[in-house]
């Protein structure tokens, strides 16, 4: 049995690219002269203290199957945030199964 040609074509991609030391910016790189530091929040963050069933919200027509979500998981629990709502809030923070969580968008 031969592999599909597309699979064979992918094989050269498995060759490793050279590893270089890059790393993220750190606090030591922070240049305050070009930072905008507001004196108050630019948007209202979202601090939910209760959640709803996504299936129920779907049945009620508040969302549809293509509605964009941001999703995080805690053990067996899945928590969704509407991407469009997060485009306003930018930060959501709460507690799930006794553990704190936060999403930044």
């Amino acid at each position, binding site marked *: 049995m031969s592999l*599909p040609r*597309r*699979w064979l*074509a*992918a*094989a*050269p991609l*498995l060759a490793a*690219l050279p*590893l*270089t*030391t*890059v*790393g*993220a*910016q*750190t*606090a030591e790189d*922070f240049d*305050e002269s*070009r930072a*905008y*530091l507001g004196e108050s929040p630019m*948007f*209202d*963050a979202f601090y939910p203290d209760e*959640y709803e*069933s*996504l*299936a129920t919200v*779907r049945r009620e027509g*508040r*969302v*549809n199957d293509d*509605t*964009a*979500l*941001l*999703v*995080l998981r805690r053990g067996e629990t*899945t*928590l*969704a945030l*509407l*991407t*469009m*709502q997060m*485009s*306003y*809030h*930018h*930060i*959501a*923070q709460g507690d799930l199964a006794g553990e*704190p*969580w*936060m*999403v*930044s*968008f």
Partner: protein
Amino acid sequence: MICNTGIGLIPSVDGTVHTFTEQGLYDGLFLMYDVESGSHWNHMTGEAVRGPLKGTTLPIENVFHTSVGQVLQESPDAQVAWSEHPAALQRSGDGGGTLGRLLGRITGVPDMFPATMGEEDSRRDRMEMGIGIWKGDLARYYPLPVVREWDNIVFDDFGGERVLVYYDPSAFALMAELTDASGASWDGSILMLSNGDRIEDGILYGPDGERKERNRPLQVFTRWYGFSLTFPEPEIFDRRPISDQ
């Protein structure tokens, strides 16, 4: 949001939960601010960059772009945090909107952004979408147009591990997954992997048809400027497609 970077963070410092807001701008990315200490934080790395907690880092985790249909397939009992804030409701009022619609509305950075930005990396277009993955000092960016050229599937070696990057049609987003497969092809919207696994509606199934645990590197589906300013001089996956014609 302009850069589309979604990140999960654990908002706890030395066992105490802090309250965070978006308050500030740097490199065209929002800075987080915690009320308790008055420190500013980088929201992609989770590190405090200014203030009393400078140098402290919050644990970070993946937050995935997906869709209602995909989540309900995978987790029928999923919960949603629904905002009643008028400004948020205005944005989600017509059913929520797709990620494509949201991204399509953004064609450039607002006027106040450039003054906050360091020297930009001109290897890719500022607003290009792609997925950035990182581990330790290694950071690599997979441009969406390059993945598109490969029929929405590329394989790569990332720090000694094989990574699959693909465009998930039901999530409308790029995803990265560690795998032992060496190839893949599409069967409609189902991604068939050479090791017998398949990804269908965002769910990974093994050869026996049972769900498998995901193994995903830290990743952000973001714009080039956001990733390259946060991870200076990242590697870029830029292999040209090998014609199979």
